[in-house]
């Protein structure tokens, strides 16, 4: 008659697919939304690219390790940052979305496991950011002179970005856990906020760290993005692989690329388990004082 619910592998896969389908459906719900996003991408690139075009030769000297072309430098910076910031914010927004629509409780009593819940609610955003990246590349290459010259090593760049993405996901999980722990529901959580500030100011998305005062450069070394951007840019457009661009490079005799990779791996090893632990703690805490649902 009545049956206990079971979630075998096929059921889990089906659930995951349902999540993806739902996110894409919502995204494509507004037909022109797609075009609007693309236009946003365009203007986002254009502002910096135009400044870069004007700046041109004047800034070449400080960009030597990265091939000296500011337009390519800034556009690649934006692209890499897009990927990493997505993985930074996806878990947070996934949980928030479920929370504000009141779906959180219903999913919590459904037999799906917590990892499935987290990945399911955030996976759609990864898909979207990949599509955005494609458009960034297209615009950059066609309109704004993104030069992918020099000793190109795509594999290496992608590897670095992947590791960095993992590290960022860990940070993202920590941020998401704060929804429960300190009720950071205003659309910003302290961790993502601080990291975001550092990324904007001192990770070298828009300008090389060399123009910053020393202490800010050191601040930049506190977040994975800095290393990822540095290494990925070198492998995409870099020539002088051995030039030390981050203050931390000076401390080690190993090649900067090695240092970057080591740093990124270290970050992932710390952030991912920590983030996971915090998230579970958060859920537990929320169940303690009954704040899973929007209204107590």
């Amino acid at each position, binding site marked *: 008659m009545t049956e206990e619910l079971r979630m075998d592998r096929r059921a889990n896969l089906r659930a995951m697919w349902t999540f993806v389908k739902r996110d894409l459906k919502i995204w494509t*719900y*507004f*037909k*022109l*939304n797609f075009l609007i996003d693309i236009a946003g991408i365009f203007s986002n690139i254009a502002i910096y690219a135009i400044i870069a075009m004007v700046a041109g030769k004047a800034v070449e000297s400080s960009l030597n390790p990265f091939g000296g072309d500011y337009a390519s430098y800034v556009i690649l910076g934006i692209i890499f940052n897009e990927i990493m910031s997505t993985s930074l914010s996806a878990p947070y927004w996934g949980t928030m979305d479920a929370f504000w629509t009141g779906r959180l409780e219903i999913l919590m009593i459904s037999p799906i496991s917590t990892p499935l819940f987290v990945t399911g609610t955030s996976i759609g955003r990864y898909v979207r950011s990949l599509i955005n990246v494609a458009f960034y590349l297209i615009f950059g290459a066609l309109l704004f002179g993104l030069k992918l010259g020099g000793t190109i090593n795509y594999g290496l760049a992608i590897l670095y970005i992947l590791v960095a993405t993992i590290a960022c996901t860990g940070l993202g999980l920590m941020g998401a856990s704060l929804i429960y722990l300190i009720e950071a529901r205003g659309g910003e959580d302290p961790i993502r906020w601080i990291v975001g500030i550092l990324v904007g100011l001192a990770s070298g998305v828009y300008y090389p760290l060399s123009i910053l005062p020393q202490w800010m450069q050191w601040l930049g070394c506190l977040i994975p993005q800095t290393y990822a951007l540095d290494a990925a840019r070198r492998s995409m457009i870099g020539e002088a692989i051995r030039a030390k661009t981050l203050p931390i490079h000076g401390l080690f005799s190993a090649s900067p690329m090695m240092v970057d990779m080591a740093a990124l791996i270290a970050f992932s090893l710390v952030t991912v388990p920590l983030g996971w632990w915090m998230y579970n703690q958060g859920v537990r805490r929320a169940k303690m004082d009954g704040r899973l649902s929007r*209204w*107590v």
Partner: protein
Amino acid sequence: METYRKIRRHPQMQDYAIETFNLSKRFGIKPLEEWKGWEDQLTHLIKERLQKKGKNGKRETTAVDCVNTKVKRGEFFGLLGPNGAGKTTLIKLLTCLLYPDEGTALVNGFDIRKEGDKVRASMNVIISGGWLGFNFALTVQQNLEFFARIYGLQKDLAKERVAEVLDILDLKDKRTEVPLYLSSGMRQKLLLGKAFLVRAPVLFLDEPTIGLDPRAAYDVRDFVKNKLNREYGITVLMSTHYMEEADLLCDRVAIMHEGKIVATDTPEDLKSSVKKGDLLELKVANMTPDLAEKIKGLDGIDDVVMHITDPVSGVGTVRVRTPNGRKILADVSKTIEEEGASVKFVNNVDPTLEDVFINFTGKRLRE
């Protein structure tokens, strides 16, 4: 004061607080969907244009269909109907949230088409689920005071009125909470509080006691009926799903179905209108299976339903439907005695307002 003078200017309106003249409201077959974005809307409009060239005029659903009803001044008027019958739309029209397609209505003597601001000034309304509109940063008390002031009460008067309302709805201990932290019942109370603050001549209540526990509901009904309606003579138009509530409070009840008002009368008359004969309910001990036939044998019996709850001691109920219970009751009980069974309990079941409701809307809903 002002309302008073305005009413004088409409002498014919003297004793009608609300009066509708075949009021009608239609919505497009697909009403604007709030989730749809503007881009969809553009394509939608273009499509419509093209279709219009093909077949002229677009199909519509009629939410309120030629409603003519008069609510006397100081009357407690009930509005019953299934979900989506157009009750809320009607109230929306009367509160100037909607603009009618045809006909018009006079609320407190003001035309809802032309004198919207005066209508607003002469009525108060609670909206189901409108609690979100309260400021989430203000406490319950601050919110209520805020609205009291908006309705033009002076500061001190507002304060005492809020205190009174908090007392009635016993929200006192929740005074310093913010709406976000209230339970659903409490939020409903908050809405009611807003409606009770000010003594406007006309009061619209859209499912006032939904989600309230019987105790709170009792207090609310008591206040609305005795204080607002009886003492202050405020005209109340209430839509509800609780039949007992309507039966208890309303002087007259209108039953709405598919946008039309299918019946308007006092609860008693409505009930007697659906009452076909009497229904005797007898609880009988150690009864025999053929008892039903025996009773059917008597003359003047339409129908007998027998239902044994406890086969061992033969305890069960016998429901006898008959044109006139007074004539038949004695014979029935005698027959039962003769069968060796014993009558434990007798009751004459009278139809409730729920029976009326189902009679007017139920069958049609089934199809």
